């Protein structure tokens, strides 16, 4: 049973990695740097987009509650994009495989880590809703499920190059946390290639800060 438990994710993870690494790079792509910091963890992801349907990156994540760091290869696949004159909707699958290591005096040994989940969003120039989940299996470091729902609005509609402002409410559910469901109001500023989000978790009194830079 242990062999199956270890081998199955490893095999699938390696397969996915091989599939993504074997994809041809036949067009000009973009790079994106994403930082996210919430009540549980802080992470940095740098990814390259070789096609409009996928990106491949490297992610580092520090889980402050469980004292481990996760280093992983992180592919994201755009499964479906819905287009309209006034809206855009997206369905993504994301995953990763890597190593979880103890930090801050955590003596536990390194463990293979694997995770995956779904992301979906729908957005107009003044309204947005979004959902994301992830299940993480990192041996004795963590077995975590999280899901986040967002809804927001823009008080005005900016044009290209303008400063765009969004007011967003984030509700998250984390099975590994004592307060499993929390609420975080946040504000998003968006201008050209830079997106910054700042908020405050009202349930556990923790700040949230995210930024994305695309080039």
């Amino acid at each position, binding site marked *: 049973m242990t062999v199956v438990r270890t081998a199955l994710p490893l095999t699938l993870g390696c397969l996915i990695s091989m599939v993504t690494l074997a994809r041809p790079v036949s067009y000009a792509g973009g790079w994106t740097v994403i930082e996210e910091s919430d009540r549980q963890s802080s992470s940095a992801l740098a990814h390259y987009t070789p096609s409009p349907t996928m990106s491949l990156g490297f992610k580092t994540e520090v889980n402050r509650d469980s004292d481990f760091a996760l280093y992983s290869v992180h592919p994201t696949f755009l499964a479906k994009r819905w287009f309209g004159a006034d809206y855009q909707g997206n369905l993504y699958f994301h995953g990763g495989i890597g190593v979880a290591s103890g930090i801050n005096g955590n003596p536990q040994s390194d463990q293979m880590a694997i995770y995956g989940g779904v992301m979906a969003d729908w*957005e107009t120039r003044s309204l947005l809703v979004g959902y994301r989940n992830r*299940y993480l299996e990192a041996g004795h470091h963590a077995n975590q499920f999280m899901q986040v729902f967002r809804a927001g609005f823009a008080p005005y*509609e900016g044009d290209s190059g303008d400063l765009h402002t969004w007011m967003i409410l984030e509700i998250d559910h984390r099975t590994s946390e004592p307060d499993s469901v929390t609420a975080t109001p946040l504000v998003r500023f968006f201008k050209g290639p830079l997106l910054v989000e700042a908020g405050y978790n009202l349930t556990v009194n923790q700040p949230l800060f995210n930024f994305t830079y695309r080039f």
Partner: protein
Amino acid sequence: MKLLMKTIVMTTALCFCLPSAAQPQHDNANHATHDMHDHEEANSSHAANSGRGASDGPVLTRTEDIESALADGGEPIVADVLGVVCDFCALAMNKIFSKREEVAAIYVDLDTKALNLVLVPGASMNDQTITDLAVQAGYRIAEVRRGDAALGGAS
């Protein structure tokens, strides 16, 4: 057993990645014509709802760069784009189209949801190329207008 169940759920989720990686690219690569047909239908519906004819969409947005390129004699093109709702959308279109040597000036207007291009004098770019480049940027073209139609005159 609990861990095994979690592992199964985990791997099932990851399995979705495999078909999802291939299918959208297949759609993009082989169904450009079909996509264009869909775009035309979407645009016709939008045009009917707004009381506009199918060919009298937004006209060229005149920025300083676009005025300059027009003065040089380049061909104006306005392409209605589906799904452009944010600055990242505009950035993607700018990055992809700006790399083309045919393009003298570009502006993505979120208000009119249009890609505004002026070509280098003597250069040309057909509708299919514009559609393919938009797909590379992650978006779709609904309709392309050129010349007088792009400037608001009779086509």
